[in-house]
């Protein structure tokens, strides 16, 4: 009789442990989804500022067309960013364009002292700066969550529980390809 209780006890403990692991995987997955939603949310916040920036730049009729086109294109890319699924490649594209736009604005604005002195323009640039800072932080949080989630589903025995109950796949973290291209060193993973 005692043996039966011990057997049942071990069985119950194993089930509780398995449920705990499964729930942790679900919690981590949801936290990663939320982190991704924050990345897209902060990217979307930039759209409004970019619209206002486009209007302001249009007032300077002789302003370089290429920069204006960059603003429009970036806005469009952000609007196309998938909120529900982690679309890393598109986010990489947006981040690259965003960096290029800021760089070209900083160069071009030197030729337009009136624009540089425009308080509305400086406020918009400050806003973009803050939004970029938040996007950067949101991406960091997303990557940290991705690492924890991937660890959670890949380590033993969690991988067994995941395969049996959830079948979640490892999420690809965000990488800045532009920065990676500048490194000679390439990690072998």
């Amino acid at each position: 009789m005692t043996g039966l209780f011990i057997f049942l006890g071990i069985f119950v403990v194993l089930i509780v442990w398995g449920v705990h692991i499964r729930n942790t995987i679900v919690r981590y997955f949801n936290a990663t989804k939320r982190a991704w939603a924050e990345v897209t949310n902060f990217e979307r916040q930039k759209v409004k500022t970019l619209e206002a920036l486009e209007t302001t730049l249009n007032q300077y009729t002789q302003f370089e067309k290429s920069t204006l086109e960059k603003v429009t294109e970036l806005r469009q890319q952000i609007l196309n960013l998938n909120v529900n699924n982690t679309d890393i490649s598109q986010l990489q594209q947006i981040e690259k364009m965003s960096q290029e736009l800021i760089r070209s604005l900083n160069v071009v604005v030197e030729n337009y002292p009136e624009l540089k002195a425009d308080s509305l323009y400086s406020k918009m640039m400050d806003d973009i700066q803050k939004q970029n800072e938040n996007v950067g932080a949101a991406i960091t949080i997303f990557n940290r969550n991705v690492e924890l989630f991937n660890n959670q589903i890949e380590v033993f025995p969690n991988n067994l529980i995941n395969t049996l109950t959830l079948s979640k796949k490892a999420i690809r973290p965000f990488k800045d390809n532009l920065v990676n291209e500048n490194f000679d060193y390439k990690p072998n993973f």
Partner: protein
Amino acid sequence: MPIDTVQEALNIRRKKNTQVFRNIARLWDAGQKSHSAQDLLDALHPWREDHNLRFFNVLPYLLAICSITILAFGYFLHPHIQYIWSFLGAFLTGFLAYLLYQSQDPLTQVIRYLEQRMVILRYGLQFQQLPGYLPIHAQPVLVLSKLKQYFPLFNRGTESNEITQYASVTWNDGVTDHQVLLFQYHYVNEIPIIQDQSSDKKIIKEIHKDLWGAFIFEIPALGIAVSNQRSRFFAPYSSKWQSSDILINQELNIFGVNQHQLAKEVSPSLTLKLHDFFQHFTGDLIYHHEEQILCYLGEQNLFQTTSKQSEIHDVSALRGHLRTMTMPQYEKFQQFMLNLIK
């Protein structure tokens, strides 16, 4: 006291101690006249006199030994010499030893003064002064009491809750000046301990503890409280917030006035900055919900100084001590707090 005067006169007349007294006077003067940390160090080198910073008490110690010896021998020789004479002899030599003994207090005092002066000159800390941001005529006691009311973190002691030491300083993050008031909070708790099971006798044990922190002024009133010590916070910061970061949720507790305000204010950037800060500090941090003040209270001693020199017996050692003296906790606090608030 006449005895004190006699003692002082005797000590000054002893040649070696006279030089030490002269060194002490020069050190006080150097401290008062210096306008920068380098000025103070330059005033100590070259010294061009005897460097010694230790009073010679060989004679008083010998006299004290003599006194004890006379007392002991007198006891054994009392069949031949009346004990009263030995006792009188011992008393006189003992009293002379007392008169000639020079305590190290004047040295300790001047070293403390120079250390504090160095902190003022190097770090810009103004001890027992309120920041310039507050009205000039404000009474420090009233201001501190008001600040303690704004942040009910100061009720840990059942018997006493005092801000015993404070210093104002201005920080610059490259763009803005921030007025800061650093403080040491001392609290006392009384715990009754039943001594005996059979009787009702209780021993009251006092437990004294210190915490250190800072009030930072002209900070946006975000209404957020963060802690890595407590899992609940007092009103109005009673609404708990889960950030999107799994790690931060495991290590930090974030509270606010309500969920709407928290969703608006706790951005990813602020979340990461808070995490960076609390990786190095243990305590509570509050952005006030109405006043533009931030308060941090934690366990690290922000006034702690360290130096490579431990024993100070001469002016060169004192200079080395002052030169290498730093406030590591304060420096770290300034760095991470500026990163958080800018």
